[in-house]
C-alpha cells in the first residue's frame, strides 16, 4: 500500500527535524530573543537533506517515509 500523496510532506519525512529543543540548539541565539516553543514557528523545521528551513507542509520529490519501522525495511 502506497502512502497517500497528501501525506508526502516534510512533516512525515525522514529528513525533517522540528523538535523545538533541537532547533534551538541548532540555531544558536534563537532562544536569546525568541523561542522555538512559540506559536509563530508553527510546525516548521530543518530538512537535513536539502539543508533548508521549511514549513512542515512543504514537499519535494525526495520524500522518504520517516518512521523507524520503515527505515528498518529500507
Amino acid at each position: 500500500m502506497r502512502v497517500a500523496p497528501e501525506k508526502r510532506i516534510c512533516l512525515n519525512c525522514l529528513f525533517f527535524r522540528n523538535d523545538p529543543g533541537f532547533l534551538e540548539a541548532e540555531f544558536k541565539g534563537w532562544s536569546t530573543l525568541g523561542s522555538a516553543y512559540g506559536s509563530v514557528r508553527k510546525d516548521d523545521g530543518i530538512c537535513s537533506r536539502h539543508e533548508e528551513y521549511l514549513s512542515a507542509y512543504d514537499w519535494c520529490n525526495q520524500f522518504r517515509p520517516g518512521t523507524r519501522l520503515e527505515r528498518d525495511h529500507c
Partner: protein
Amino acid sequence: MTEKEKNDIQLTETEEAWDEEADDLRVKSVGWKELYLKEDWWAIWLSLGLIVVAYAFFVSGGSIKWIAVHPARWSTLTQLATDFSSHIVQYIAQFIMWLVVFTLSLKVMGIKPREFIPSFIFVYVCSILIFMVGAWEHAHHYNLEPPLLALALGMVIANFIGLPRWMDAGFRVEYYIKVGIILLGATLPLTLIVWAGPVAIGQASIVAVTTFLVIFFVGRRLGLDRRLCATLGAGGAVCGVSGSIAIAGAVGAKKEHAPIAITMVILWAIVMIFFLPLVSRLLQLHTGVVGAWVGTSEFADAAGFAAAQAYGDMAANVPGIPGSPEDAVWGFTLMKVVGRDIWIGIWAFVMAIISTTFWDRKSGTKPNPAEIWWRFPKFVLGFFVASIIMTLISSQYSLQEYNEVLKPMLVSPIKSLRTWAFIFCFFSIGLTTRFRELASAGTKPFWAFTSGVVANVALGFILSSIVFAHYWENLSH
C-alpha cells in the same frame, strides 16, 4: 542493499505505520494541541490564572500582595537587610509559586525539570539581587535601572564566566516576557487600546513596510539570495527573531539564513536597548513618545521592554523627563504588541505566496490562509483578555475607590508580579547572549540589515516624536 537503494524513496508501508513510531527529533503536527504544547498558550493560562486568583482574593476581602513581594526602596544596607529578613517567607513562597507553575508547564512542553529547576533557582536568586540594586535610592545616578543591570550582568556571566549549556532550560526569555506582557494587559485599560491602537497599527505599518523593503532591496542590490533578504527584512520589520524564523519557514530559506538573521537581530537589539533610552534621555523626550519609538524601532519584544522600562525608570528618578514610567511601557506595548506582532501570520502568508508563485521554488506547498491563525502570536489574545477583564472590574468602581482600594489590593500586586517576570526575562537575555556562538553574518547581510536599522530608527523617531506625538504624550489621559 546498495547506497542508491537505501536512498530510494520507499513508499510501501501502510499509513498506519506513520503513527506507530515517531522520530525523536520530529514532532507531528501540533494543530490544536498547541493549547498545551506552545508557550504562548501556557503564558495565557498562567497569567490569566494569576489574575483570576488575584481577583478571587480581592472579592473575598484579601489580596495577593503578600506573595507579590518585592524589595522596598532603601538607602542603607541595614534598611535593605531588615526589609529582606522581614519578608523572607514571602520571597520563598513566591519562589515556590513561580517554580511550580513554570516547571509543570515547561515539562509538558518538553523541557526537563531536572535541568530547569536548578537553573531557575539561579535566575530567581540573581533577580532578587538585581531588584535590590534597582531599589537603591541612588541607583539611577549610576544608570543601574533593573532592566539594564539584569542584561549587563547576564552578558558578563555568559561571556566571561560561562555556564553549562543545560542551564539554558531556565533561561526562557520568550516565556517570561509573554507572561509579563499578559500581566501588563491587566494594567492597561481597554479604552486606551481602542483609542491608541489604530494609531499604533498605522505607524507600525508604515515603518514595517519601509524597513522590510529597504533591507530586501539593499540586500538584493548587494547580491544576496532573496530568501535571505526576506528573512533579514522580517527580522528588522516585523518582530525580530520570531519574524525572521517565521518568514524563513514560509519562504523555504537555506539553513544558514536564519542564524545570520538571528545574529543581526541580537546585535542591533542589544545596541538599541542602551542607545534608545540614552539618546531619549539626552533629548528629554516624553516617556510615551519614547515608548512608541522603542516599539517601532526595537527588534524584539523582550529587548524593547528592557529599553522602555529602563527609560520609564529614568523618568521616575531623573528630573526633567516628562511623562510617567507607565507611559513608556504602555506606548511600547501598544506599538509593538498591538501594532506589529499581530501581523506576523499575514507577513508569513504573503511571503509564502510570493515565494511559491514567483521565486521558482522546487519544493513548497500552496499557502493556506489558515496559516495566519496558526502563526498568530496567541499570547496577544491573553493580553487583550487581561485588559478586558480588568477594565470590566475597574468600571464598577469610582476613581477614588480605584486609587484607594482596587489599585493597592489588586492592580499593584499584579504589576509587581509582572516586574518579576520582566526581570527573569531581561536577565535571561543576557545569559543567553553568547557573542562567540553567534553565526558569522558577513558584511553584505550586515549592511543590508543596518540600512534597514537606519531607516527604521529615523522614521520611528519622526513618527513618534513629531507626527503622532500628540497621541503618545497623552496616553495617561
